[in-house]
């Protein structure tokens, strides 16, 4: 941790200053967030004898490594924001989203939210050995919808997910990754979330699904929440978001209008 402290002070200028807009109501505040997570099994030999020796000598697992994925990010998201997060592979986008969702504890700094953010990730199945229709019902009930509300939403979800005929009665393990992601998005979007975090879920859909999911995200924004979107496809971000955050190696490089940030990002990455 001493290491990260040094890093932080030397890079105080990297984070653009956060200007608070007093006229708008904040929904997510990220304050000097550092995320360090541990990776097990990196370069392990892992024989039983060596594991035993390690326990006898009371050593930590030697193959455990610490990854400093997010290094001092601060920003404020307001109600009605749709924020795109861009950056190269490994720049900490997904980690940042997981931290906002409360799935990764901050090493330093903090994340403050109104309500419970929900994260939609790329691993698509909720319960892969159950059928699509069971997943819809369980997903809705788990989010706290009543049985009546679930019944009312069921057809809408099936229609929105737009699966091949009959697939709704197959286990989700038989779905293609695109189908799974669509169904999961449809389930999560059945309820209004205060903060919705979408991690590449739309990247797997076809053009038709992208169009409809954009409409859905607009609808969710109007219901007074905020949406965070991670995607490598910049078109999706440009069409959907009103604000873009550019992460580079765990630090915030830019935060502003989509046009401006995306232009700079495209220039920097040479796309």
């Amino acid at each position, binding site marked *: 941790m001493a290491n990260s402290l040094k890093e932080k002070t030397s890079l105080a200028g990297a*984070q653009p*200053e*956060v*200007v*608070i807009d007093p006229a708008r*109501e*904040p*929904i*997510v*505040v*990220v*304050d*000097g967030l550092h995320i360090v*997570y*541990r990776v097990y099994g990196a370069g392990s030999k892992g024989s039983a004898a060596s594991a035993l020796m390690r326990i006898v000598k009371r050593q930590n697992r030697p193959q455990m490594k610490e990854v400093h994925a997010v290094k001092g990010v*601060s920003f*404020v998201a307001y109600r009605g924001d749709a924020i795109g997060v861009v950056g190269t592979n490994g720049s900490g986008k997904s980690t940042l989203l*997981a*931290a*906002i*969702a*409360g*799935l*990764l*504890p901050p090493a330093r*700094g*903090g*994340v*403050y*939210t*109104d309500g*419970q*953010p*929900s*994260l*939609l*990730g790329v*691993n698509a*199945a*909720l*319960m*892969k*050995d*159950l059928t699509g229709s*069971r997943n819809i*019902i*369980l*997903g809705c*009930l*788990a*989010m*706290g919808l*009543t*049985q009546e509300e679930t019944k009312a939403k069921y057809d809408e979800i099936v229609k929105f997910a737009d699966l091949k005929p009959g697939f709704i009665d197959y*286990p989700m393990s038989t779905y293609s990754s695109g189908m799974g992601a669509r169904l*999961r998005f449809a389930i*999560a979007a059945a309820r209004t979330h205060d903060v919705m975090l979408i991690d590449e879920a739309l990247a797997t859909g076809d053009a038709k699904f992208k169009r409809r999911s954009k409409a859905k995200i607009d609808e969710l924004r109007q219901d007074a929440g905020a949406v965070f979107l991670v995607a490598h496809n910049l078109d999706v971000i440009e069409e959907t978001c009103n604000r873009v955050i550019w992460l580079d190696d765990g630090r915030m490089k830019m935060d502003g209008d989509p046009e401006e940030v995306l232009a700079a990002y495209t220039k920097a990455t040479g796309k």
Partner: protein
Amino acid sequence: MNGSGNESLAEFAARHGLTQSAARPSLRKYVQELWQRRTFIWNFATAKTASTYSGSQLGQLWQVLTPLLNAGVYYLIFGVLVGTSKGIHNYTAFLITGVFVFTFTQRSLTAGAKAIGGNLSLIRALHFPRASLVFANVLMELQQLLISMVVLVVIVLLTGEMPTLTWLLIPPLLMLQLLFNVGISLAIARLGAFVRDIQQLLPFITRTWLYFSGVFFLIPQMAAKFDHKGYPWVGKILEANPGAVYIELMRSCLIGDVSKFPINHGLLWTYAVLWAVVAFIGGFWYFYRAEERYGRG
């Protein structure tokens, strides 16, 4: 940090009533949320049961066949080959009751250890009280036990017992065992979520427990033996063992007196209630204390 004016971002967040993401709700709110999810718990249990058997030809018929086959194996070994049945009236019913009742606790524990690790993608996608997964697992096992109980009643009747008024005590007894099982499952679920090695260790723990719980032998007989040798405390411990308590009570409800050794019913029922209350409250509290950490990186 670098907020506008003198106000830090944390203060700004606090002023607008924002809270730390993924903080644990108050116990009262947690219980409320859990109660709200009761239809989810029920649906999760039935869906999981259906999917467990969806791969096999006979489907949910296995819910009846599995206990029958189990009973058959134990009867063959301990009833016919080893012949532990000396001095026990209706050994078949005695043995099978023990096996079925203990299996309920054993399977609840095993399922509890996997409750968090086996549902990570659900936990990471949606926000709900994690204890509902454990409740659903125990409910699944209860459903299995009720089917086993029907099989058991048929066996008891076939071996020459008559229904008596004490059969009415079976539902409250199952209620107490259910509470006990939920409690210990919640505790093992928290352990299993952070120490995956528990799953490797658990079969040995439950098997040891099985052999100590008087499934194959008479606890009062064993206690008398240790009394005779001058170690009365061994018998006291064997009698207080929750595994044994629920088995003995079920036997005395279903079959009546199984041997010449007297059973202290009042003491056993006190143990049954105490274990249920202590395990349930303790397990729930222990599980709840780590609620915000389940399913994290």
